[in-house]
């Protein structure tokens, strides 16, 4: 392998270029969010606030109800995460380790359903939730994320590597299946639970189309829905909108940075081995 300085510079130069393209829009967003109103609308575009200010954030939280949207997003994403992790883990573990009649057929049917895009279900789902009085409620926004075929699949893949002797030993000791699940299986599945939780939280937080449909009431809206509405009303308020984007993106970006090992691992289990 020849390691010429030229090749070294080319490879790393290209990587620096790609990293700049990836991060520059996010950096620009952060810088503009601290600018005075109107400051970003200059040519050439400024990359640093001349007099940094929190004015835009104050405006968002005091005048535009940003705290409500932040709360709604956090509540819905947390609810989806807690419920879906529990339901998917129960099902994924059962598909991997418990014998029951029709197990393989049920699992194959689930996998086949993966090809159906979620949007097909949205019109009847809306009517169903309307009947149930769940339109414009937090639970209504959580519904599509409460259990997921992909999540069940992820847990099943991981749970298959649990040693059967471990479960048998607990059974011989007279432990109930529920007790085995909570005291033996859950601790052993911890890494995949974190993965599942990160996926669920990011998915719910970033989701747009369903919350847009089901949360018509402004007080109930999540950050992405509110941001889309605000950006239509405040087309000229560059700096304000960038502050809104910061509030929306930073929580998930921080979460990802803290747990990226789990996230990337899940991504690979879910796709390459699938």
């Amino acid at each position: 392998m020849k390691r010429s300085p030229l090749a070294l510079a080319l490879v790393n130069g290209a990587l620096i270029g790609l990293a700049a393209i990836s991060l520059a829009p996010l950096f620009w967003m952060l810088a503009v969010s601290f600018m005075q109103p109107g400051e970003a609308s200059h040519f050439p575009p400024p990359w640093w606030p001349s007099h940094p200010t929190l004015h835009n954030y104050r405006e968002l939280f005091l005048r535009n109800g940003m705290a409500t949207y932040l709360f709604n997003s956090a509540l819905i994403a947390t609810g989806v995460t807690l419920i879906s992790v529990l339901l998917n883990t129960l099902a994924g573990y059962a598909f991997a380790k418990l014998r029951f009649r029709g197990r393989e057929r049920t699992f194959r049917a689930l996998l086949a359903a993966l090809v159906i895009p979620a949007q097909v279900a949205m019109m009847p789902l809306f009517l169903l939730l309307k009947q149930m009085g769940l339109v414009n409620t937090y639970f209504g926004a959580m519904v599509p994320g409460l259990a997921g075929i992909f999540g069940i699949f992820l847990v099943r893949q991981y749970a298959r590597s649990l040693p059967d002797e471990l479960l048998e030993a607990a059974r011989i000791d007279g432990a109930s299946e529920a007790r085995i699940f909570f005291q033996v299986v859950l601790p052993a599945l911890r890494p995949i639970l974190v993965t599942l939780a990160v996926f669920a939280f990011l998915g719910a937080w970033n989701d747009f189309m369903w919350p847009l449909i089901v949360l018509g009431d402004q007080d109930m809206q999540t950050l992405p829905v509110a941001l889309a509405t605000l950006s239509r009303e405040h087309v000229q308020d560059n700096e304000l909108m960038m502050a809104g984007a910061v509030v929306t993106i930073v929580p998930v970006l921080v979460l990802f940075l803290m747990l990226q090992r789990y996230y990337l691992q899940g991504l690979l289990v879910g796709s390459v081995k699938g």
Partner: protein
Amino acid sequence: MRASLAGWAFVAPALSVILLFFALPVLAAFALSVTDFDIYALADPRNLRFVGLDNYIGLLTNPLFWKALGNTLYFVVVGVPLSIAASLTAALLLHSKLARFKPFFRTALFAPVVTTVVAVAVIWRYLFHTRYGVMNWLLSLAGIAPIDWLGDPHWSMPTIILFAVWKNFGYNMIIFLAGLQAIPEDLYEAARIDGASWWKQLTHVTLPMLGPVLLLVSILTMAGYFQLFAEPYVITQGGPLQSTVSVLYMMYDEGFKWWNLGNASAVAFLLFLLMTAATSGLLWFARKRGVE
């Protein structure tokens, strides 16, 4: 026997959620698509009528549907190969033995994937502003006249494609990286002994070995790109001149702006049909080329 009962008890909660909130609505969507469900039926179900395939026929004779279909196909046909090329390039660079600070670069290139589509789409609107946008400033440095990215119907879809590539390439990059790491080193060893150049190694060892991964990534990316919605909703609102109305955008407008839920369901089913056909086509092509 105990295990059998326990098994069903464990899968029951998740299965009921999926049945009630997904499987049932999918079936109901088909039923809905052969009715004229509209805002009057929403108020009183007695206004509902069976119309057979009228919604489908209506769509196939509706110029806006064909426009939306054309725009979506444009986005898929140009966007998917571009995204995959970007992902593969990034993965090859990251996989190179010459690359430094790999964990940092991997995280940096992946960061756009976890961001919220709506929020970064809002950023994009300002980056591609005709007068004050960073993009036109960069072009001006190269001596190129400003482009009306979001106002010119010829440039609106390319802008959205650039956005999608930027936002998504990190995802497939991670999958490609894993694929590259799984290629046995002796294959390259043998190629080098035969005097194969860097390019020869790429086309004769790396790409053939990546075949199955490439197929998987193409299918997943295509399925995702057919579902284009939030990007045009935020960046261009479907305009200018409906140049960025996608099939799902049309479904949303039909269903939840005009409350023609029957018609919207028909749009959704046509999209599903199209996605199935495209995926089957890709699999057929891959099988013919001997990738499995």
